């Protein structure tokens, strides 16, 4: 048991590649728990950020600054009556949210949080990822159809129309990024997610800056298409609240409805991870090729700890600014505990950073590296998450024929052009 546990620690490949099923299982569990936690955080952050865009406070009552609101919501949804309309196709209605959820979570098997911090490194990683994440649409279509109701049906139709119009452009720009991975001495590219990041490492440039502005255009198209893929504003036609009441999930309630939400947020994180992996250097910290002196290495390794220290500081300030009235006593205590928790995490991370600063192969050094990789990856993904909220606060909703027009008449020609030009430029410069 212990041997099985320890056998992997010194390894530099993913458990999937090492054939270590035990560690693969552990990774799956960690990722599942981590993504669920991220969704809960995202839920709270979205409500708070959106509220502040809109000069509101957002949740403030359940826990200090509404920190326990997502948990209260989840609890409420679990306790709610689970309604299946009598006219609905019962089995399909039951299975639809699971399809969406499964598709959203399956893609995490190939997302590389670090060179060895992934469940598996498939050689067709990106293909697998695009294929599986597109299956999420099936969940929506099936849910809309099974509800046997008009608004969900229209929502489902919109969703499928949406899929055919962005998926093509999205695939083409992904191909242009894959082409860039082949610009090495041997001229072989890769579809492996880890390989794509390593190619950026070897070439010393994030693909977003490669052949500027080619990489950037490709990235921008992907960034638009991924908003459409996750049915988020301004492309949230499938659930357009003001038009279709709630779109495809109008007839869903309780836990089944919350599975759709979970799938939506998980899918948002997943597609952001693709964008980060393909164009933003995945797990790499900024300027690994220029600032590679041990001192720089150490400074950058302090970032995770400092981030949590900053969060803890915000929580401390929040505690201090709580009204002095005795009504807020419990809330103040709660926030103080939260601040202490963040502080402990910060302390732990800083200790790891200091203990693992020598670049040897000790467990502490490996652990420190792993934390750095995951930190930079998550930070980049978090930027996209913020963008998702920002879009939602700022823009009106597109009409679905307008999305299709953009997809076919604007994005598709541009992405085709980018692909061709990338190929030509790649041949010339290699």
């Amino acid at each position, binding site marked *: 048991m212990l041997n099985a546990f320890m056998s992997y620690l010194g390894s530099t490949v993913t458990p999937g590649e090492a054939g270590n099923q035990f560690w693969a299982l552990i990774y799956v569990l960690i990722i599942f728990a981590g993504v669920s936690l991220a969704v809960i955080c995202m839920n709270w952050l979205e409500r708070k950020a*959106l509220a502040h*865009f*809109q*000069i*509101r406070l957002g949740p403030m009552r359940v826990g200090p600054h509404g920190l326990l609101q997502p948990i209260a919501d989840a609890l409420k949804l679990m306790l709610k009556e689970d309604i299946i309309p009598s006219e609905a196709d019962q089995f399909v209605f039951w299975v639809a949210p699971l399809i969406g959820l499964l598709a959203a979570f399956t893609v995490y098997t190939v997302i590389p949080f670090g060179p060895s911090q992934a469940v598996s490194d498939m050689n067709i990683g990106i293909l697998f990822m695009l294929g599986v994440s597109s299956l999420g649409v099936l969940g929506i279509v099936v849910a809309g159809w099974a509800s046997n109701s*008009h*608004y969900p049906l*229209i929502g489902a*139709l*919109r969703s499928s129309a949406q899929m055919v119009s962005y998926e093509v452009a999205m695939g083409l720009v992904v191909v242009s990024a894959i082409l860039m991975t082949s610009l090495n001495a041997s001229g072989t590219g890769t579809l492996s997610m880890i390989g794509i990041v390593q190619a950026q490492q070897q070439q010393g440039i994030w693909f977003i800056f490669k052949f500027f502005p080619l990489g950037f255009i490709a990235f921008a198209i992907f960034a638009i298409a991924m908003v459409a893929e996750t049915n988020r*504003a*301004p492309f*949230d*036609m499938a659930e*357009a*609240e*003001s*038009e*279709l*009441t709630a779109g495809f999930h109008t007839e869903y309630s309780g836990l089944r409805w919350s599975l759709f939400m979970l799938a939506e947020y998980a899918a948002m994180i997943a597609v952001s991870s693709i964008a980060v992996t393909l164009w933003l250097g995945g797990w790499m910290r900024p300027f690994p090729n220029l600032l590679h002196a041990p001192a720089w290495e150490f400074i950058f390794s302090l970032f995770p700890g400092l981030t949590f220290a900053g969060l803890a500081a915000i929580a401390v300030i929040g505690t201090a600014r709580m009204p002095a009235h005795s009504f807020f006593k419990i809330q103040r205590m709660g926030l103080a505990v939260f601040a202490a928790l963040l502080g402990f995490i910060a302390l732990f991370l800083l200790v790891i950073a200091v203990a693992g600063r020598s670049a040897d192969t000790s467990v502490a050094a490996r652990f420190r590296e792993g934390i750095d990789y995951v930190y930079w990856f998550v930070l980049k993904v978090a930027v996209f998450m913020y963008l998702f909220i920002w879009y*939602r*606060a*700022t*823009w*009106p*909703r*597109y*009409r*679905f*024929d*307008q999305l299709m027009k953009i997809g076919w008449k604007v994005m598709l020609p541009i992405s085709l052009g980018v692909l061709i030009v990338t190929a030509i430029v790649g041949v010339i410069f290699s």
Partner: protein
Amino acid sequence: MSIRESTNDVSNLDLDTPDKTYLDSNELIINMGPQHPATHGVLRVILKLDGERVLGTECVIGYLHRGVEKIAENRTYTMFNPYVDRMDYVAAVSNGLGYCEAVEKLLNVEAPARAQYIRVILTELNRIASHQLWLGTHALDIGAMTPLFYTFRDREEILKIFERYCGARLTTHAFRIGGCQYETYAGFEKDVNNFLTFFAPKIDEYETLLTTNRIWLERTKNVGVISGEDAIALGVTGPVLRASGVKWDLRKAQPYAAYSKFDFEIPIGENGDTYDRYLVRMAEMRQSMRIIEQAVNSIPEGPIMGKVPKVIKPPVGEIYHSIEAPKGELGYFIVSDGSTQPYRLRVRPPSLVNLQALDIMVRGLLVADVVAVIGTIDIVLGEVDR
């Protein structure tokens, strides 16, 4: 499509046996409302769809019917005054102004100059408040969540002035037959002037969010087009009519209250689409500010109540008086039999009449445009159903 054709189609909106369209698929008949996030209350629209394309609509109204006109027959003229506030509850002051002026016309009395100035100021403030609510909800229908909160924040300042003036925020009952009941409170002029300086940059803020927003342009330009001819034929009034290029505003056309004393313009549009209606209303808010500024800085001194008998008993006769409410022409037709109660009172609500234009505006458009058009007509169901 001419109006005559389209109205015939509506009455033939055959709901029981949907027609077959191509590929042997049926038309979809869908109920939008009465409980729907974008129908501004309890409007029910039956949509006949081919896929998402609208083939025809039918409005079903009456879910908020309270029989206001019948109630009027059992109330004295004074007692009925607060009821009109409950029709268009976002522009209650305008409703009160229309009713009071109608009864004054029937009685053949006139409100004193000071009362008329106060009436103009409050009515124009209310016009801004009404347009703010329209802007917020209209943007929300099209998917922009944020403007709603900004408009509500600023509308609050107007409601505060109302509250200080008469104690109520929404259903104000601000005016009385013959003038105003309340003298302006100390600092009224200052509050109004403060509001004007506060609000001028806020309109620009709304416009930054929407006017040049590409998605907003795509969603509103050439959507829900109605020609000036059709609009007149349907009796459409207010900003919807003016956006179609017809320069018709009762404040200029048949001035009432003190409007003839002020210098303002009537903004008009060209294309009669949703975007032009948006621009017209935004410009109207600016013009309202101009009127308020002139009025508040030149309020004459004097009494606020005209010579009205304690018991209002108008002579036998009938009267139609209409004013330019924020949503269009608001008319009151009152028949008096010489008693203390109206024999018959009929309201011509702008929302109801403008709603007629929905069908020809949305034919051939998509479901998403239906909510945009309902929003742009700016209906209040309290007024549609009465």
